């Protein structure tokens, strides 16, 4: 059976959820083979096996750390040249897309980014123009290199016993030119990952900079906090939480837009949410056109009342 190469992202010796999504899609096309950069933990191989990886290839070359993505693209190209996969799936993060672009050049393969689904024949579905159009496409030359949006599908387990191999790669000096000279880790918010959360509560200009109620509503619903670009530009919330064209794309079960007017750039990042609730003073705000429930009112009164009512129900 043909093999499909996936790149498995991981944190703290555990596989990230988007990698399990890639394995689930890869199984439609062939036998998944997972590449893991920089961690040889047994927990990772075991978790990848749970979701159907038949082989786990670990690459621990020191060049995988300390530079931007060029060394990883080189390593993947060497692996792909040996194993000749039917397709290569990578998660659509900024780094993942850059790796995919470089790999497509190196392998002479067609490239598709930001797929929301991949079929057994390797054809893809994408959501484009701020989520207003759906496009299906396929690669016509070489082994398709496809990046897949996180959270687009639900991972399904398919336990196998994965074999593990350590792969030696040769990284050129040319790939080691964009040096990471310092790195300051960010403190975790303790909330679910924005792109993986079932509920996202987002604040915008209407919050006036006070995100306390937005955060509290997110916490009582077990959700993540997001922000509009206006709120981020004003310095009220960090860029890592920005939702929209130039930030994250989220597609949760429930998206709650608080004090966000809903410009096209914002809708691009949340339009495919399953359900949308909007709270805004302005009854003409474009967000109401896509909301399943719209509340025209002052968020500073609506949110505390809703939080109180949820708490009462929970007892």
């Amino acid at each position, binding site marked *: 059976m043909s093999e499909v190469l996936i790149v498995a992202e991981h944190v703290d010796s555990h596989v990230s959820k988007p990698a399990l999504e890639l394995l689930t899609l890869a199984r439609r096309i062939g036998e998944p083979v997972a590449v893991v950069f920089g961690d040889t933990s047994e927990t990772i191989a075991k978790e990848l096996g749970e979701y159907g990886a038949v082989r786990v290839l670990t690459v621990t070359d020191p060049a995988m750390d300390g530079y*931007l993505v060029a060394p990883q693209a080189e390593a993947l190209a060497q692996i792909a040249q040996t194993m000749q996969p039917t397709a290569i799936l990578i998660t659509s993060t900024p780094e993942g897309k850059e790796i995919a672009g470089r790999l497509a050049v190196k392998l002479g393969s067609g490239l598709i980014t930001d797929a929301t689904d991949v079929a057994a024949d390797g054809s893809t579905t994408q959501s484009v123009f701020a989520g207003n159009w759906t496009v299906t*496409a396929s690669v016509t030359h070489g082994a398709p290199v496809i990046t897949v949006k996180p959270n687009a599908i639900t991972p399904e387990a398919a336990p196998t016993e994965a074999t593990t191999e350590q792969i030696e790669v040769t990284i050129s000096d040319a790939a080691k030119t964009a040096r990471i000279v310092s790195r300051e880790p960010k403190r975790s918010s303790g909330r679910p990952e924005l792109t993986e959360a079932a509920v996202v509560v987002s604040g915008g200009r209407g919050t006036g900079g006070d995100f306390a109620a937005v955060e509290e509503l997110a916490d009582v619903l077990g959700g993540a906090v997001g922000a509009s670009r206006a709120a981020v530009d004003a310095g009220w919330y960090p860029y890592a939480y920005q939702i929209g064209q130039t930030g994250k794309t989220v597609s949760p079960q429930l998206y709650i837009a608080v004090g966000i007017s809903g410009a096209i750039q914002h809708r691009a990042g949340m339009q495919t949410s399953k359900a949308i609730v909007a709270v805004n003073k302005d009854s003409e705000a474009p967000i109401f056109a896509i909301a399943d429930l719209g509340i025209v009112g002052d968020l500073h009164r609506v949110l505390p009342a809703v939080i109180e009512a949820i708490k009462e129900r929970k007892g």
Partner: protein
Amino acid sequence: MKIVVLAKHVPDATGERTFAPDGTVDRTASDGLLSELDEYAVEQALQIADDGDDVDVVVMTLGPDDASDAIKRALQMGASAGIHIVDDPVHGSDALATSALLAEAIKRATPDLVICGMASTDGTMGVIPAMVAERLGWPAVTLGATLSVADGRVTIRRDDDVASSTIEAELPAIVSVTDQSGEARYPSMRGILAAKKKPVETWTLADLGIDGSAVGLDAAWSKVLQTSPRPAKEAGRVVEEENGTSAFIDFLTAGKYI
């Protein structure tokens, strides 16, 4: 120092965006403009020029005749010259052909530094800086929230979900900057008048030594099978504030969120 800014002419995101029958982006359906995200790249180049001696900012665009509007805007903002790569066979090129064309054009323009936006606002792939760098064998220092150039070296700060990192590379290099890098300037009246006298060169495939059959829709390594508009969402319920709490709670209960 010579800086090339890669700038794309895109359909206005606030207008009606659609596809042409051949599956490419319809560039005639609505007015085009310099991609907002590329304005940040122009701005960073101009700031380097403002602070340095003898810095040349050349804006380069690849696209049909109308794409010259993107160059015009950058010249009005303060760029010193433009290069417009335009040739009929380019229509429908994929990211592979686009990056190959831009890499050849950059070789011909011989800059010390190439600055790009983080992605286009139409295709939104965000892969061109890395792919061009791959072809040139140059460092790609991407997604800078800040950018500085000194002593033959470029340095950025990148903010991602888990860390804030400082990244540097020797010139020549290709960099991209995010929308966090600083508001782009508006053209002044003086800038608008001065732009009319600034030189814009037109380059063809022949100038780049690229055969027409190697680019365009027929040479693309991926093809669009189908494009369909997302069905318009049915308007939901809108309530006034006094009924807001109960409506919200009912909604959460019905959806089993609480």
